[in-house]
C-alpha cells in the first residue's frame, strides 16, 4: 500500500510539473538595436537633453539607504524635464549577490524586467546576461554620433578606455561606462611608519628592506612608546582587508611586482602572463618576511584580525603599531587630523628590496559598466539616450554630488576662491569643482533626495578629479595645505602612482566558458596561496627546497595551468 501511494504521488508530480513548467517560457530573442523610432531624428529638448517623446521608462536601482525617495527626487525631476520622459523605479536587493540571484530568477521565469538595469555588474555577468539575450547589444547606438552626442565629446584616451571596458568578450557592448579616473584608489598599499618612534630612537626613515629590519628591531626591543612593556608590534596589517591593509603584499613588491593573488605580465616579456606567486623572487620575499617573523618583528595577527580588531589595534590607547600599510587613512584612523595615533604615523615611499626592486601593488584603472537595457524594454533607443545623457557634465555631477549651486558648484568665479592640495603642490592648475559649497552636509552620509547617489553612467576625467575640493575647509584664505590627512595624497602622487612597470596587465574579460572552467581553480589556488603565505611566514610550512616544490606541485594539481591559459587567451584578445 505504501509503495503504491508513493508511485502514485510521483506520477502525479511529474504530470503536474510538466504541465506548468512547460507552458510558455518567454522566448528571449536578442533584440537588436534596429529601433522602433524614426531613424536619424534624434532631437534635443530646449534644456539640452535628448527628447524622448514622453515615454515611460522603468529604471532598476539598488536603493541607497540615504536617498529618501527616488520618485520625489531632484535628479529624477530634472531628467524628466530635460528629456521629456517619465521615470518609474524598480528596487533591487542591496547586496550584489542577492541582486544577481534575483536577476537570474526573473530571467528564468520570464518575469517582467525593468527597462533599464542601473546597477554595476562584473564583466562575466554582463556577458552571460547579454549573450543569452537578457540585455540587448548597443553597438549601433554607441557608434551613432547623433544618438551619443555627449559620448562623442569625450577625449580620445579616456573614450578608448571606456570602450574597452564596455565591450564584452563577444565583441558586443551591453551597457554604458562608469568612468571616474582617480589615482588614489589604484595604489592603495600606502606604507606608514611610526615617525614618533623613529624620532624617539633617533633613527632615519628606512628606505630599504634591510633598513626596515633594523628599525623594526629597535621598535620591538627598545620600548619607544615608553610604557615599560614590550608591547610594540613591528609589522602589522590585515590580510583579510579589502583596501590596502595586507602589508604582506606591500612588502612583497620589494622583491617582485605583484598585486596579491592575481595574474601579472612577465617583466621581461610583456606578452606573457605569469603567476608571480610561483616565482623565485616571491620566495625571496617570503624568506624576508619569515626572518622578520622569527625575530618577533612581524605580527601573526596580520593573518587573524578582522576589521574591528584591526582598527582597535591601530587606535590603541598606547600606540603599539610600528609599520603598516593601508588604503584609507580616514577610514582606519577615525577623525584622523586629531587622532593621536594617526599623528604619529608618517606615510613613506615604497621600500626597495635587496635586488633594487621597488614597486607597489597596482591595478590599472578599469572603468565599470552600468545601465544595461533589457529585452523587455519597448523603447530601447530612448533608454539608451537617457543613459547617455549622464555623460553630460552637469548631470554626472548632480548624480555624484547633489544639487548644483547648493551642494556643489563649478562656476569658475567661485572655484577661483578655493584651492586644494593638488593645486598647492603643482599637480594640477585649478580647482574644477567645489563640493559642500552652500551646505556643510555631506550627501554621502546624510539623508536627502537630491541625487541617485552616483547610480548611473559617469564620465569624470583625471583632471576633473584632481580639481575637486571640499568647500567647508578649502577657501583660499583659510586653507591649511599640509594637514596630516592630506599629506598621504601628495606622497601617493609623487611616489606611488607611477611605481609600477610601464606595461601592466589590463582588466581581463573572460568568456563564459573560460570563466566557468577556471572558477574552481581560481578559488582553490587563491585560498591555497593565502594560506600558504601565512604558513610560510609563520614557519608552519617549511620554506626549504622540498617545501617550495610541494607548494608548486599542489597548485599544479589544482589547475594552475588552466588558469594561466585562460588568462593568456583573455589577455591576447586585448592586444588585438
Amino acid at each position, binding site marked *: 500500500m505504501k509503495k503504491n501511494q508513493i508511485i502514485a504521488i510521483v506520477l502525479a508530480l511529474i504530470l503536474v510539473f510538466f504541465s506548468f513548467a512547460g507552458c510558455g517560457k518567454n522566448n528571449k530573442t536578442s533584440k537588436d538595436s534596429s529601433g522602433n523610432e524614426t531613424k536619424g531624428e534624434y532631437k534635443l529638448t530646449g534644456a539640452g537633453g535628448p527628447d524622448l517623446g514622453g515615454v515611460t521608462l522603468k529604471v532598476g536601482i539598488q536603493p541607497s539607504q540615504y536617498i529618501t525617495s527616488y520618485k520625489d527626487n531632484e535628479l529624477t525631476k530634472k531628467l524628466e524635464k530635460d528629456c521629456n520622459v517619465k521615470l518609474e523605479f524598480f528596487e533591487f536587493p542591496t547586496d550584489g549577490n542577492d541582486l544577481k540571484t534575483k536577476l*537570474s530568477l526573473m530571467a528564468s521565469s520570464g518575469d517582467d524586467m525593468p527597462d533599464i538595469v542601473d546597477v554595476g555588474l562584473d564583466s562575466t555577468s554582463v556577458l552571460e546576461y547579454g549573450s543569452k539575450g537578457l540585455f540587448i547589444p548597443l553597438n549601433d547606438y554607441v557608434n551613432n554620433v547623433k544618438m551619443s552626442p555627449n559620448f562623442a565629446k569625450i577625449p580620445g584616451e579616456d573614450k578608448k578606455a571606456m570602450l574597452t571596458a564596455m565591450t564584452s568578450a563577444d565583441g558586443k557592448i551591453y551597457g554604458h561606462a562608469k568612468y571616474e579616473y582617480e589615482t588614489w584608489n589604484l595604489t592603495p598599499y600606502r606604507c606608514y611608519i611610526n615617525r614618533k618612534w623613529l624620532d624617539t630612537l633617533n633613527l632615519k626613515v628606512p628606505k630599504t628592506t634591510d633598513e626596515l629590519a633594523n628599525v623594526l628591531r629597535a621598535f620591538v626591543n627598545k620600548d619607544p612608546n615608553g610604557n615599560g612593556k614590550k608591547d610594540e608590534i613591528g609589522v602589522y596589517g590585515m590580510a583579510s582587508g579589502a583596501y590596502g591593509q595586507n602589508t604582506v603584499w606591500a612588502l612583497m613588491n620589494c622583491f617582485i611586482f605583484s598585486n596579491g593573488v592575481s595574474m601579472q605580465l612577465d617583466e621581461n616579456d610583456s606578452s606573457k602572463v605569469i603567476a608571480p606567486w610561483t616565482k623565485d623572487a616571491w620566495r625571496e620575499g617570503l624568506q624576508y618576511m619569515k626572518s622578520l617573523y622569527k625575530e618577533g618583528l612581524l605580527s601573526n595577527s596580520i593573518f587573524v584580525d578582522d576589521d*574591528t580588531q584591526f582598527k582597535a589595534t591601530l587606535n590603541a590607547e598606547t600606540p603599539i603599531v610600528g609599520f603598516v600599510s593601508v588604503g584609507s587613512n580616514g577610514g582606519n584612523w577615525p577623525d584622523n587630523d586629531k587622532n593621536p595615533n594617526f599623528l604619529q604615523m608618517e606615510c613613506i615611499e615604497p621600500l626597495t628590496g635587496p635586488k633594487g626592486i621597488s614597486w607597489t601593488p597596482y591595478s590599472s584603472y578599469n572603468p565599470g559598466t552600468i545601465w544595461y537595457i533589457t529585452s523587455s524594454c519597448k523603447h530601447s533607443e530612448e533608454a539608451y539616450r537617457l543613459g547617455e545623457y549622464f555623460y553630460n557634465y552637469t548631470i554626472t555631477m548632480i548624480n555624484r554630488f547633489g544639487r548644483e549651486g547648493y551642494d556643489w558648484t563649478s562656476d569658475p568665479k567661485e572655484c577661483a576662491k578655493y584651492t586644494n592640495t593638488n593645486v598647492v603642490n603643482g599637480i594640477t592648475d585649478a580647482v574644477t569643482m567645489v563640493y559642500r559649497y552652500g551646505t556643510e552636509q555631506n550627501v554621502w552620509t546624510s539623508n536627502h533626495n537630491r541625487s541617485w547617489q552616483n547610480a548611473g553612467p559617469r564620465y569624470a576625467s583625471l583632471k576633473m578629479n584632481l580639481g575637486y575640493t571640499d568647500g567647508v575647509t578649502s577657501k583660499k584664505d583659510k586653507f591649511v595645505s599640509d594637514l596630516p590627512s592630506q599629506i598621504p595624497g601628495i606622497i601617493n602622487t609623487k611616489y606611488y602612482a607611477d611605481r609600477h612597470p610601464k606595461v601592466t596587465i589590463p582588466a581581463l574579460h573572460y568568456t563564459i566558458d573560460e570563466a566557468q572552467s577556471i572558477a574552481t581553480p581560481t578559488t*582553490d589556488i587563491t585560498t591555497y596561496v593565502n594560506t600558504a603565505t601565512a604558513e610560510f611566514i609563520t614557519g608552519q610550512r617549511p620554506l626549504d627546497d622540498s617545501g617550495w616544490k610541494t607548494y608548486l606541485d599542489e597548485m599544479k594539481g589544482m589547475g594552475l595551468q588552466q588558469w594561466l591559459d585562460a588568462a593568456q587567451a583573455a589577455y591576447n584578445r586585448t592586444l588585438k
Partner: protein
Amino acid sequence: MKMKDRNGYISADASKGIVQISSQSLKQRMLRRWQLYLMLLIPLLFTFIFAYIPMGGLIIAFKKYNFRDGIFGSAWVGLDNFTKFFKSAYFARTLRNTLTLSIYGLLTFPIPILFALFLNALPGRKYKKIIQTVTYLPHFISTVVIVGLIFQLLNYRSGIYGAIYTMLTGTTAPDILAKGRLFKHIYVWSGVWQNAGYSSIIYIAALAGIDPTLYEAATIDGATRFQRLRYIDIPGIMPTISIMLILAVGHIMSIGFEKAYLMQNNLNIAYSEIISTYVYKVGLASGITDFSYATAIGMFNSVINFALLILANTISKKLSGSGIF
C-alpha cells in the same frame, strides 16, 4: 454471524481467511475516518503545491542550467556537476570539516536538556522567569555581531581572554584564534553559548506537560528532587528528546554558512572551510549564479541527511517503538 466492533465488521466465515477480514475492515476503517482525511487535505495541498511541484526542478542538478534555455531546454550533463565538486582539491577537506563541526555540535545535544531540567527544578518562580527570558535572547543577535564579539573577547592582546591570561601568568597569551585546531571548539561552544537557551524551550514546554500527580506520588514515597528528576522528568520528556535527536541527526549536513564564513582567516582555513562556504566562493569566482552546481551540492547534502534520518528513525523504532514514520 456478523459481529461489529469499533473497526468494522468481522466476517465469521473462517474459510475465507484472515485476508478477507482485513480488506473489508480497511475500506470501512478508512471510511469511518473520513473527517480526518478531509482535514488532512489542507496541509496535504499546501505541501503538494509548494514543496512537491517545485521538486521537479531538482533535475537541473543534472543539467547545465541557464536562464535562456530554462529548466527543460538546458543541456543535459549527467553527473558533471557532482564530479566537479568531488574532484576539487578541497572536497575531502570541506566534507571532513562539515562533518566534524556537525557531529561535535551534536555531542552538545544534552546541554539544552540539562538546562531545561535544572531550570524546571529551580524553586524561585521570578528568578526562573528572568533566567528563561534572558537565556533565549542571544539566539536573536545576528551572527555578524556574535562573531565580532568572539573576536573581541578572544583577542590575545586586548580581549578579556588575553587580559585574564596576562593577569594570571604575567606573559602574553597565545593567539587561540590563529590556531586552526582550536577552531572547532570555538565554533561549537560559541554556538552553545548563543543557542542553548532557545533550544531548551521545547524541553521546558514538554516538562510542563508531565502529570503533576506523579510528582505528588513520588514525594509521598520520599523521593528527593534529584530522584524525581531522574525517574519522572527524564522519562517524561523522552519522546520529545528522541524526536529532537532524530531531527538533529537528519540535519547534519545543514550546518550554517554565515558563521563559518565570518570566522575564517588565513591560518585556520584548513579547519574552517566547510561545504557551504566553499560552494559560495566558487560561485562568486565564476561570476554568474550557477544554479546547477548549487542544486547538485544541495542534493548531495540532502541525500546524506535523509539517509541518516532513516537510519536514526529505524534505530529509534527498534529501541523505543516510536519514530517519525
